[in-house]
């Protein structure tokens, strides 16, 4: 089989060439749809800095890669694991190749030409709130990762398939083309109800989500810069790789970008509060 016949995805992300291969149509299709809106297309002859190959194995897939630095990747997994591992490897490699960026574990939508980050602990509801905000028409940057260029504080989209761990509440049905990978649901970016952001945009707001219970009344509270720094630092991937152990990069972000604590509750009510803030109604946030 020729290289092009096995190619699932070929794109340039933050200037890094990426090629992902799969030896069977199922894996190829899943990988292709997951990465379809990430970065920009990589030309046929263009060099790949990052390459991965998925092969069928043991009822699942074996994902392998030989990075320029570090240990080779060789993991056998199911479909959810394949998508997760491919992304994890991609992100680790891009981080290594682009030390000028602070990689934040966050969702992000665009509002008034700026990126609004939704930061939460894993399972803290950033993807589902992102999905709900897309229904409100806010364009999509990512539900998982936002690389921020430390000098300019430009946020770069990582528009992979939006990943949910459970079906959303009624009234927010997933599109027919959603990939169901067992324990995770993946909505390809071209099926999202809002446009995908294709360019870097300045950071505009940072919202730190704290789930207060499904019956809780959502509330926004403006944070001091120091409080925002303390919340943002744990969301940075590998901060110790940056000068000053990543503290200076985080401080630079919070010095320039206002931040709120969002006590989340009912999804619709939370989305209404957040959407109002993103549309410029700052009166909803306590000082």
């Amino acid at each position, binding site marked *: 089989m020729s290289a092009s016949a096995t190619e699932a995805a070929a794109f340039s992300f933050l200037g890094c060439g990426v090629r992902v291969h799969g030896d069977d149509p199922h894996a190829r299709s899943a990988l292709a749809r997951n990465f379809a809106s990430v970065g920009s297309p990589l030309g046929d002859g263009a060099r790949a800095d990052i390459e991965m190959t998925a092969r069928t194995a043991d009822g699942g897939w074996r994902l392998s890669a030989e990075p320029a630095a570090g240990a080779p990747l060789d993991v056998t997994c199911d479909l959810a694991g394949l998508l997760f591992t491919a992304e994890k490897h991609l992100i680790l490699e891009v981080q290594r190749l682009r030390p000028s960026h602070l990689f934040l574990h966050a969702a992000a939508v665009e509002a008034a030409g700026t990126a609004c980050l939704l930061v939460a602990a894993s399972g803290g509801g950033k993807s589902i709130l992102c999905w709900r905000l897309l229904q409100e028409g806010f364009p999509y940057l990512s539900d998982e990762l936002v690389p921020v260029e430390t000098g300019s504080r430009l946020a770069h989209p990582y528009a992979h398939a939006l990943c949910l761990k459970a079906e959303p509440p009624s009234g927010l049905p997933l599109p027919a083309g959603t990939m169901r990978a067992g324990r995770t649901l993946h909505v390809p970016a071209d099926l999202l109800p809002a446009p995908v952001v294709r360019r870097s945009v300045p950071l505009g707001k940072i919202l730190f989500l704290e789930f207060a219970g499904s019956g809780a009344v959502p509330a926004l509270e403006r944070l001091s*810069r120091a409080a925002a*720094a303390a919340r943002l630092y*744990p969301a940075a991937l590998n901060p110790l790789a940056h000068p*000053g152990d990543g503290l200076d990069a*985080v401080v630079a972000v919070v*010095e320039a970008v206002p931040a709120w604590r969002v006590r989340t509750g009912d999804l619709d009510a939370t989305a209404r509060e957040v959407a109002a803030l993103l549309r410029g109604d700052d009166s909803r946030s306590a000082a």
Partner: protein
Amino acid sequence: METPASDEEVPPPREGLVSRWLDGELVLLDRPQGKLHHLNATASFVFSELAETRRPRELAERLMAACAIELEVAERDVQAILQQFRELDLLGPAGVSKGTPAG
């Protein structure tokens, strides 16, 4: 009757803490533990004064002067803040570490 608070010198800030001021509040990176702490303005003042004195009574006097509060209130605040520093493991064993001055 309330027991008077101890004026025993407290340990210095633990080694390995990196600090930055942001609008009058400190953030402290605890590199060995991979944690970032945020201190409010009063706790930040007390932490930064540890570079000058580690006696609670003197810290309270400095807080009283800086914030124009009663000495009794300042002493209570300092004791509570030092206890919090201990719980967050921000203070090193006495006489071992020279600590990292804030700022």
